[in-house]
């Protein structure tokens, strides 16, 4: 490719020179014209690219502005009470965001509890333990998992995972934890199948590839000399990971985890299928609940009345603000590890 590419560019530059230098006699005027045209095009192109960059900024600004604008009626009607009210009643037009926020946090927490150790384990496996021939296929397979659209996880969760959990896992959880004080209230109530635990599970599967691939990338930034030195003084593979690689890459790993968290918080379709859409705060993880994104997806097109719509948009605003800060923190941390590896 390199050779062909060089030839092509040379051909082109030559032909350009030919354009500029070809007419030797009526030259000066034409040449000035061509150069002028080029300069004009240069000017236009430069400004076009800059305008596009600014437009990307404006899109984000537009997102924030439109969300604030759309939620103004709800903000005026409920004020800060929106964040502390549990009731969500379209009939009396009383709306509060506590249940969706609670559901979002609980499902994301479940997802992170499962996905972080698992993702780190797979990343360690890929960088340290995996036979060389398998490294690429497994890496690709994990990344394919990231490419599957969320609606596929949703339909699979609804028809395959939820019935399985309902019949086999949840009854066992209920009877196992029945006598233990705190756990019994976490796993109380009938096994519905759908609910916050199932949603957390699906989210865990979805964010797993993100955490894995970022952890693997940051593990790769560790200078081999460090690992070799640790092995040289007799560390086991695990000790090399635990005391050299993970401390060295801590910021990057946390950044990757935050990025995964950002995904989990905002994930919509997969959760909507299995959460059960119940506006209440329940201490049991088996109970149906709702998340911010699931509420919007379920109710937005059916929302009648400006206040209802506006309350849903305000939910979107809250979600956006939360994910914005999580993602910003993640990017900041990943930037630090990039600088470290660049230096």
């Amino acid at each position, binding site marked *: 490719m390199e050779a062909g590419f060089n030839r092509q560019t040379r051909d082109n530059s030559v032909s350009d020179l030919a354009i500029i230098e070809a007419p030797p006699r009526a030259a000066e005027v034409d040449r000035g014209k061509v150069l002028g045209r080029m300069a004009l095009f240069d000017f236009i192109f430069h400004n076009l690219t800059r305008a596009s960059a600014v437009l*990307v900024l404006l899109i984000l600004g537009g997102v924030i502005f439109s969300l604030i604008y759309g939620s103004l009626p709800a903000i005026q009607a409920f004020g800060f009470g929106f964040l502390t009210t549990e009731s969500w009643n379209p009939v009396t037009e009383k709306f509060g965001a506590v249940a969706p926020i609670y559901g979002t946090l609980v499902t994301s927490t479940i997802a992170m509890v499962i996905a972080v150790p698992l993702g780190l384990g797979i990343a360690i496996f890929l960088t340290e333990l995996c036979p060389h021939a398998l490294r690429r296929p497994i890496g690709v397979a994990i990344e394919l998992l990231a490419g599957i*659209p969320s*609606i596929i996880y949703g339909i699979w969760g609804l028809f395959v995972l939820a019935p399985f959990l309902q019949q086999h896992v949840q009854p066992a959880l209920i009877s196992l934890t029945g006598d233990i004080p705190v756990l019994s209230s976490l796993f109380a109530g009938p096994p519905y199948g759908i609910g916050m635990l199932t949603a957390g599970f699906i989210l865990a599967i979805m964010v797993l590839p993100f955490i894995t691939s970022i952890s693997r990338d940051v593990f790769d930034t560790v200078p081999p000399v460090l690992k070799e030195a640790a092995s040289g003084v007799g560390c*086991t593979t695990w000790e090399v*990971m635990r005391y050299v690689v993970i401390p060295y890459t801590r910021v990057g790993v946390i950044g990757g985890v935050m990025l995964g968290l950002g995904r989990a918080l905002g994930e919509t379709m997969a959760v909507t299928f299995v959460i059960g859409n119940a506006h209440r705060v329940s201490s049991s993880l088996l109970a149906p609940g709702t998340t911010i994104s699931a509420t919007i*997806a379920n109710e937005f097109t059916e929302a009648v009345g400006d206040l209802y719509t506006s309350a849903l948009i305000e939910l979107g605003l809250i979600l956006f603000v939360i994910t914005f800060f999580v993602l910003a923190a993640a990017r900041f941390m990943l930037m630090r590890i990039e600088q470290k590896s660049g230096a």
Partner: protein
Amino acid sequence: MSLYSSRRRTNVLATALCWTGTIFGLAWLVLILGALIYEGARGLTPAVFTEMTPPPGATGGLLNAIAGSLVMTTIGVLLGTPLGMLAGTYMAEYGRYSKLTMVVRFINDILLSAPSIVVGLFVYTVVVAQVGHFSGIAGALALGVLVVPVVVRTTEDMLLLVPSPLREAAAALGLPRSHMLMRVAYRAAKSGIVTGVLLAIARVSGETAPLLFTSLNNQFWSTDLNAPVSSLPVVIFQFALSPYKDWQQLAWTGALLVTIAVLLLSITARALSSQGKHK
């Protein structure tokens, strides 16, 4: 000696856990694809590609949904790609070290993983609420907004990989900067940029959340982009949650089609980019 053996035990245990974790992670992929093929292939008949989405209890296909998805994805990609490429070009070439670039890069990375449902709300407030009705154009716009950050990111990354001597050689021949970009830099970065566009298509073709309240859904054949347009992901969502067996079967089949399309796109993208790397 006991210290040594306990360290070794920890090592064996941790290693075993990593193995198990990996097998566990891969098992999901197998389980999901397995269920999808098993359930989806049963309903894969020619009618799926030739008939419209049926009312409850009747048989039918997914033709209008497939067509709607294709049209909206195409328009979205056509809108988002040029904008993304131009912005990426500015960041890598004209303003490589400028403040604007740093800000845009940061914002773009956030847009890249921002919840797509928020983009749907954005387009709803800006377009749907102003015009007064749902439309295919609004859906395409929402998808376009999702395409932009992916293309910006890959264009910038790929242009940054183009060696500077190439640019300098072009400049030494007297080429203006814009010509250098078109004739030299874009060509060198071509396979990378195409990869980015393919990944962007893969990402938006499965997107459901931003379409729910922009393009809505349409049970019939419609070529009017100013009216609600059906799309595969929204149909899957609606049909899967319905109580009708026929609809659920169509949802599985649709899910299989979307997954095949997305996986083909991402595998092609991967093959393209690794080809570029090897040579």
